[in-house]
C-alpha cells in the first residue's frame, strides 16, 4: 500500500476520532465542579477524628492505608528487581575500586558544582527528615520526605566521588533500612490486628492538639517508616545503576 493511501486512511480515522473526542469533551462538567460527597465529609471530620491537620496524609495512612501498603511494596519490589537484574552475571567482572590509571588527566568536577552540592546536603537532609516526620501537620508525607532524603545522597555523589557515596551508604545497611521501613509499616497494621482492631486502624493515643508533632497516633509513625523505606529504595536503585556504570565490566575474571 502506497504511503499516500495510508495517509488518507489515517486522516479518515483521525477525523472520526476527533469528532467523538470533541463530542465527549462537550459533555464534561465545568471546571472545578466537584459533586462527590466524600471530599466534603473528609473535610469535616478528618481533623476532629484523627487530630491531624494534614488531611491528605490521614487519607494516605489512615482512611485508605491499605492502598499505601500496596504502593510501598511496589517500590520495594522495584528496588529488589533492580538489584536482581543488575547483579553480577557470569560474563562480567567487577573492577576493583582502585583507580588504575591515576596519572591520566581526568576532568575534575567543577568546583562550583562541588561547593553548591556540599552546601545543600545538610539543608536537604533536614528538609527531607522534617517532611517525613511531619506528615500530620503539613503538605508532606513519608514518600516526599524519603525521596528528598535520597536526593541528599545524590548531592554527596556530586560533591565527591562514587567511593564517598559507597562509604556513606553501603549496600548491606541500605537494604536493612529498606526492609525495616517496609516491614515496620506492615507490622503496625498487623499489631492493630493483634489487638483485635481492623488492619491498620489508628490505635496509638491521638494526642491533644490537632497538628502537633506527637498527635495523630499511627499516622506519624507510619509516615516515618515510609520515609525510611522510600529513601533506602531510591538510594539502592541509584547506587546499583552507578555501580553498573562505573565498576562492572565485560569479560570474565
Amino acid at each position, binding site marked *: 500500500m502506497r504511503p499516500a493511501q495510508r495517509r488518507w486512511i489515517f486522516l479518515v480515522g483521525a477525523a472520526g476520532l476527533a469528532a467523538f473526542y470533541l463530542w465527549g469533551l462537550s459533555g464534561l462538567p*465545568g*471546571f*472545578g*465542579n466537584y459533586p462527590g460527597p466524600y471530599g466534603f465529609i473528609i*473535610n*469535616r*471530620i478528618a*481533623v*476532629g*477524628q484523627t487530630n491531624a491537620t494534614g488531611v*491528605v*496524609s490521614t487519607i494516605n495512612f489512615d482512611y485508605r492505608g491499605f492502598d499505601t501498603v500496596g504502593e510501598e511494596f511496589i517500590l520495594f519490589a522495584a528496588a529488589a528487581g533492580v538489584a536482581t537484574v543488575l547483579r553480577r552475571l557470569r560474563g562480567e567482572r567487577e573492577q576493583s575500586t582502585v583507580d588504575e590509571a591515576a596519572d591520566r588527566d581526568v576532568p575534575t568536577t567543577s568546583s562550583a558544582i562541588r561547593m553548591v552540592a556540599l552546601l545543600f546536603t545538610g539543608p536537604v537532609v533536614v528538609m527531607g527528615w522534617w*517532611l517525613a516526620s511531619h506528615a500530620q501537620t503539613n*503538605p*508532606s*508525607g513519608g*514518600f*516526599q520526605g524519603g*525521596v*528528598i532524603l*535520597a*536526593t541528599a545522597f*545524590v548531592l554527596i555523589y556530586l560533591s565527591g566521588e562514587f567511593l564517598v557515596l559507597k562509604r556513606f551508604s553501603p549496600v548491606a545497611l541500605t537494604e536493612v533500612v529498606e526492609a525495616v521501613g517496609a516491614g515496620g509499616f506492615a507490622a503496625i497494621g498487623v499489631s492493630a490486628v493483634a489487638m483485635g482492631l481492623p488492619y491498620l486502624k489508628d490505635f496509638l493515643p491521638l494526642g491533644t492538639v490537632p497538628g502537633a508533632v506527637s498527635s495523630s497516633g499511627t499516622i506519624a509513625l507510619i509516615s516515618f517508616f515510609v520515609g525510611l523505606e522510600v529513601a533506602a529504595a*531510591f538510594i539502592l*536503585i*541509584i547506587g546499583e*545503576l*552507578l555501580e*553498573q*556504570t562505573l565498576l562492572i565490566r*565485560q569479560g570474565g575474571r
Partner: protein
Amino acid sequence: MIEAVVTPYTVPVDMMDALQITILVLVAAGATAVVLIRERVRQVLALSVYGVLLAVLFLAFQAPDVTLSELTVGAVALPIVLLLALAKMRKREE
C-alpha cells in the same frame, strides 16, 4: 468523637485563572519539546525541566503533596536513572 469541624476554606473555584492557563500551555510546549529533541542527553535534560514544569502545574492546581513528589522524582531521580543507563550503553558501544 466525631466533631463537625467546618473548615473555613469554602471558596468554589469554577474558572481557571491566568496562572493555571499559562502553566498548562507551558506543560504542553514542554511535552512537545521533549518528544521533538533527538539527541539523547539533551532529551533527558528536557525531561528534567518538564518535571519541574509539571510540579508547578500541580502546585497551581492546589495539590502540594503531589508537587513535592513530582519535583524530586521527575526532575532528579528519573533523569539520573536515564543518564546512568545512557552512560552504560555508551560504554558498551566502545
